[in-house]
Each structure stands twice: as C-alpha cells, then as structure tokens.
C-alpha cells in the first residue's frame, strides 16, 4: 500500500505473519525463565528476544523501515539519550 508520502507499506498478510512471529518470540520468552538448562544464558537471551520484538514492532508496525529516514533520526536520538542516562545513572550509583 502506498501512503500519501509515496512510501510503500506492507500488506495485511505481512502484518499477520509478523504478529505470528511476535507471538512465537513471546512464548519462548515466557518459557526461558522456567528452563533450568538455559540459566547460564538467561539474561542475554531474554534481552535478545525482547530487543528483537522491539525492533520488529518499530520497523514493521511503526513503518520506520519504510518511511523517511529523518523519522529514524528522531527516534534514534531518544534511544541514544536513554542509553546515556542508563550508563550515567547506573555508574553513578555503582550499580555495575
């Protein structure tokens, strides 16, 4: 589907497929804390799965993959600022 700004957006079939992928990732996420065998990699695995869901929603459902690059810039500034705040706050309180 082309929008008023001339950028093509995915079809409804793509949206349903993406939702299915998100549902599967969520199911894996919920299972991970209960699987003792995955304890050594639990934290990085959960962060990876959560990060994947985050990126999929932003890229496909929010159309950031298909829209103007300037939109990515504004969102990226917020994200970068957040990581700086994370680092400064947690380092200040010696939480690392």
């Amino acid at each position, binding site marked *: 589907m082309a929008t008023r700004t001339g950028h093509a957006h995915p079809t409804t079939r793509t949206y349903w497929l993406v*939702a299915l992928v998100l549902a599967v990732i969520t199911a894996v996420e*919920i299972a991970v804390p209960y699987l003792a065998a995955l304890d050594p990699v639990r*934290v990085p695995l959960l962060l990876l799965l959560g990060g994947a869901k*985050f990126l999929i929603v932003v890229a496909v459902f929010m159309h950031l993959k298909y829209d103007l690059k300037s939109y990515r810039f*504004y969102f990226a500034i917020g994200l970068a*600022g957040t990581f700086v705040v994370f680092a400064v*706050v947690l380092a200040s309180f010696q939480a690392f």
Partner: protein
Amino acid sequence: MAIDAVVDQPLEDPSAAIHRTRKTAMWAFLGSEVFFFGSMISTFLLYRNTTLDGPGAEIFNIPFTSASSFVLLMSSLTMVLADHAFGNGDQRQGRIWLVGTALLGTTFLAGQIFEFTEFVHAGLTIRSSPFGSSFYMLTGFHGAHVAVGVLLLSMLVFFSLRGRYDPDQGMNVELVALYWHFVDIVWIVIFTVVYLLQI
C-alpha cells in the same frame, strides 16, 4: 534566470508536506518519551533490590502478566490493521479494528488494576519501599499512557461514526497508531526488564 529556476521546481503537495511535518513532530515526541521511560527504567534497576524487608519481585505472577503482555502485543496487530484500512479508505473496517484495539487496551488496563490490587494486598505499596515506588511509578505511568491511547482510539471511532473524521486535521489514525505501537514497545521492555529478568 534565478526566478525561472525557482519556478521550474516541482511544487510539493501542501497536504503531503503538512502530513510529513505532523509525523515528524510525533516521532520527535516519541523520541522524548523514550527518554522519559528510559529514566524510569534505570531508576527501577537501581532500586530493584531495595525492598526494606518487604515484598519484592517474588510476588510477581508471571503467567498472568504474560497473558496481559500478549493482549497488548496483539493490540498492535489490530491497530496496524485499522491504520491499513483507513489508508485504503475503508473506514467501516478501520472502525472495527479500532474498537478491537480499544477493547484489548482496556483488557490490559483491567489486568493491571487487578495485578496492583493483588500486590497491595501482599504488602507492596508505593510507599512500602524504593522497589515499590519505582515499580508503581514505571508501570503506573505506562498504564496512564495506555488509558490515554484508549481515549484517543475512542475519539477516532466517534469522529468516524459521525462522518467528521478528516485525516488532514487533528489526530489521525496514523499518528494515534504510532503512539499506540510506542506504548506497546515500552511494555516489551518493561516486561523483559522488570518482570522476566527479576524472577
């Protein structure tokens, strides 16, 4: 010559330019919101172990919160389908998906109210410990964002039903969809960091 050069430039459709400006403003707003929630998540991480001998993450009901998370995640699907339908000029189909999104959002909020009530009965209040304060501030602010989203969705349905929906004026479906998906991605982070990583 210079004037000729300017005149030869193709003029951009004014409505497309306005649309792009409003969308840019929404993305800038969402960028600031990332910062806002990021600050609260880092605060929660700081105080996650400061329970003052009161209840902590052990009282979380992961299966229940997982179901709530799934409901909110699927509301992103209904929202994007509503956006797609309105983009194709099918307002009737779009309204159905908007109502579905609002109902899923309301279900999530009902689950959050139930969860908060259970936690308060278990002794975790906003004043019981820094853990409680940071937990309720973060999840409560997120819940408030969901409530605002449900209100915006309801307004869109109302305006569309009355034949007063104009994508070029006020909040249109695309902007509300961006806001709604943002609320969803914030919960994706909260669910991982606050719930799953703490058990």
